[in-house]
């Protein structure tokens, strides 16, 4: 059993299945577990949150968090990340969602047993019919084959999906993939969708096509304004969810969000349950006065910004130049200036992923490049033939974030002190996203990266051929280690490889990452059995929570 008496963690599961032994895995019912301190659960009530306006409602046609955040309330997956106060933020134990249990008869085969009697939400065109293995097979097939699914590559190692009977799904992989269950559990992964909706609407973009088997049903959608969700009477975990309605008001303006939160409009932090540190510093005193019953805890984010470089051409193909850049950047000063001095330095796997990130102090020889040393930076530049200065351009977009602008300006100033005359090449968001974000720049780029809940997503940016490989890294050692960790099912051995990989990459400095901020998870004390975490699965984190007011 897992730590809090619920289902098995992914690590425990792989420990059982890693040696290719066939073994049934217990179902997960952790969501119904309730800490005694919160008293007996209460049904009813409406929780108010800050929503984001979905791009559309087809989870397989966008990687936008705006769509996936909304669908975390309405759709189920085969497996999911466990949620609740017992889960440490930054860790992601896996439990069954639609899958009651699963087994791994060999390294490349997974057999999922579905819960029986699961029904779709009572909305047309599905009208609450039973959800079967064929629906799961259809969803996986669509995920892998629908044109325009940017996330399909996350499961590109899947060879075939079969539904031998109404409650069994068999997935065969082309090669062992240690992250398979993590990929399925991620809130951006395969939402199980009904075929009837795709047939009726052509795709799932329209709000009418938003029919799932998740804890809440989409009850209303007003573009740019709000989403409302109502309890799904057919939800497959008896008694859940406890909260009857979720009202999500769209608010795209930072000042407006802060004032709404101070005024008590929302029950949890307005960025998926958290408030970023710099904004927290602005509203903390007002909140103490106006909302003294709020509960808080610090959460280290997995949002990681970095400087990327064209390492396939001079001057950045010279490791001395890359190390000099890393030594020139004063990460602590940036953290002090833009995150109120809180946060953690990021090795290649962000510190927010506690199970996999190696603390900077344990990076071996590479650790020294995370601490500013201007003299050494100048010496390295001089040794590389740039003693008279190194001109560079830094491709950048603001993302509408003053913090990011400050960070970019600080980095430029710090590089200048080392003799690197870097100029900001600011682009409009769309232009940046379609060029510099995918490695189409001449010199350097700076900005935040996509977020993942497992390390493999971050490591992929070191793999040749990956569009996320902004720095165009071609490193045989790194490639070998990345592929090896993907094939290593034993979590302990895999962690050793991931750590070795981080040590190697730290010394190479293909990307010069800065810190991740410590955000404040905040929620109304009337919200019980709630535990914050990273990721978009707010719906999952609220499923077993209740309101006591």
């Amino acid at each position, binding site marked *: 059993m897992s730590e809090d008496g619920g289902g098995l963690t992914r690590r425990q599961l792989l420990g059982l299945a890693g040696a290719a032994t066939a073994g049934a895995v217990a179902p997960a019912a952790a969501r119904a577990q309730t800490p005694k301190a919160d008293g007996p659960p209460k049904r009813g009530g409406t929780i108010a949150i800050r929503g984001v306006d979905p791009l559309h409602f087809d989870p397989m046609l966008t990687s936008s968090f705006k769509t996936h955040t909304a669908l975390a309330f309405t759709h189920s997956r085969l497996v999911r990340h466990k949620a609740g106060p017992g889960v440490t933020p930054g860790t992601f134990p896996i439990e069954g969602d639609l899958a009651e249990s699963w087994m791994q008869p060999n390294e490349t085969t997974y057999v999922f047993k579905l819960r029986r009697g699961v029904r779709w939400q009572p909305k047309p065109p599905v009208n609450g019919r039973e959800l079967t293995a064929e629906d799961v097979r259809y969803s996986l097939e669509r995920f892998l084959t629908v*044109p325009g699914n940017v996330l399909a590559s996350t499961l590109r190692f899947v060879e075939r999906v079969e539904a031998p009977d109404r409650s069994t799904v068999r997935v065969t992989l082309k090669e062992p993939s240690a992250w398979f269950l993590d990929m399925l559990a991620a809130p951006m992964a395969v939402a199980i969708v009904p075929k009837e909706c795709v047939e009726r609407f052509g795709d799932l973009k329209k709000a009418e096509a938003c029919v799932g088997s998740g804890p809440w049903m989409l009850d209303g959608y007003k573009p740019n304004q709000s989403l409302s969700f109502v309890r799904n009477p057919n939800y497959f975990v008896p008694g859940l969810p406890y909260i009857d309605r979720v009202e999500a008001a769209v608010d795209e303006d930072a000042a407006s969000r802060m004032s709404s939160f101070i005024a008590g409009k929302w029950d949890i932090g307005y960025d998926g349950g958290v408030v970023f540190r710099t904004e927290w510093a602005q509203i903390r005193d*007002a909140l103490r006065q106006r909302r003294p019953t709020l509960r808080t805890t610090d959460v280290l984010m997995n949002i990681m910004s970095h400087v990327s470089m064209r390492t396939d051409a001079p001057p950045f193909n010279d490791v001395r130049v890359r190390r000099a850049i890393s030594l020139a950047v004063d990460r602590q000063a940036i953290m002090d200036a833009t995150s109120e001095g809180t946060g953690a330095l990021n090795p290649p796997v962000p510190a927010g992923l506690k199970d996999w990130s190696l603390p900077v102090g344990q990076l071996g020889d590479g650790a020294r490049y995370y601490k500013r040393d201007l003299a050494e930076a100048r010496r390295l530049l001089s040794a590389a033939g740039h003693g008279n200065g190194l001109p560079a351009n830094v491709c950048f977009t603001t993302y509408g974030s003053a913090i990011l602008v400050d960070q970019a300006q600080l980095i430029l100033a710090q590089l200048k002190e080392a003799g690197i005359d870097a100029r900001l090449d600011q682009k409009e968001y769309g232009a940046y996203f379609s060029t510099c974000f995918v490695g189409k720049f001449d010199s350097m780029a700076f900005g935040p990266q996509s977020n993942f809940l497992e390390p493999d997503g971050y490591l992929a940016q070191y793999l040749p051929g990956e569009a996320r490989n902004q720095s165009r890294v071609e490193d045989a050692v790194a490639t070998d280690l990345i592929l090896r960790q993907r094939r290593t099912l034993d979590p302990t051995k895999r962690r050793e490889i991931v750590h070795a990989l981080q040590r190697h990459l730290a010394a190479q400095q293909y990307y010069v990452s800065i810190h991740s901020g410590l955000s404040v998870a905040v929620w109304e004390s009337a919200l019980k059995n709630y535990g914050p975490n990273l990721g978009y699965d707010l719906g999952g984190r609220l499923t077993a929570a209740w309101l006591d007011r």
Partner: protein
Amino acid sequence: MLRRYLARRLLVAVPSLLIATAIVFTLPRLIPGDAVQLMLAETSYAKDIDELRAKLGLDRPFHVQYVEWLGRAARGDLGESLWTRRPVVQELAQRLPVTGELALYATLIALLIAVPVGVLAAARQDSLSDYVVRSLAILGLSVPGFWLATLLIVLPAIWWGWRPVTGFVEFRADPLGHVVQLVLPAVILGVASAAALMRLTRGMLLEVLRQDYVRTAWAKGLAERAVVIKHGLRNAVIPVITLLGTQLPQILGGTVVIETIFGLPGVSRFLFDAINQRDYPVIQGVNLLVVSTVVLVNLAVDALYAVLDPRIRY
């Protein structure tokens, strides 16, 4: 005569609209990154990009796309959003009333502030009230709308734990609440326009008040109100009306930020998102609407000249 003039102006507006649509069609396609690249983002592969581009009709020659869009637009079909697949006309029909209403209130507020204050400043030239009003006008011109909006939202929350209405209240649901929610954003939008209009009203009225026929009116013993309002203001107001016509694009531009801050689901915010996403049909549809509105408003302003000044004939 006026009818012929308006018909002629409408005819002249057609090439203007065509040029505007061609520019609007071209410019978003010239900036790097198209909708497909943004949709597929980091994990895209050449085959996916080509397939999706073909599916969305973006692989055809530019001029073919333009002519086809123009033909459909002439029939009232502005196409579908590349991202949401919702018809652009339907989206505009939902959002236009919000922006239209906001712009109307902002214009009314601008006029309600500008004209009386401008008249007062002119009638009391170089008095304390004139100086105060002129200083306020400079302040109104200088203060950015987004900054004012931010203050008006944040400070009440910090001081009293209160913030203006969040979320859009539809007229059908609560007529009073609907209007009330638009007052604050309309005031913010109207202030800058009011400042410009007030300064022009004052300046024009001062000039008119120095004319001989005004001196005659004073000599006849008419009351100040009659001299300033009836003889002075009516003749001074034509440039103000002209400026009002040119203020409309500025007010519409201002709504982009104001709609975002106040959470209003209007056209401007829709356009802003569409530009970020390279949603060409939406960009084209909204801009066609804006250009048409500006042309029509300026036409209406021209027609108003004749009403305000009977000497003007077309």
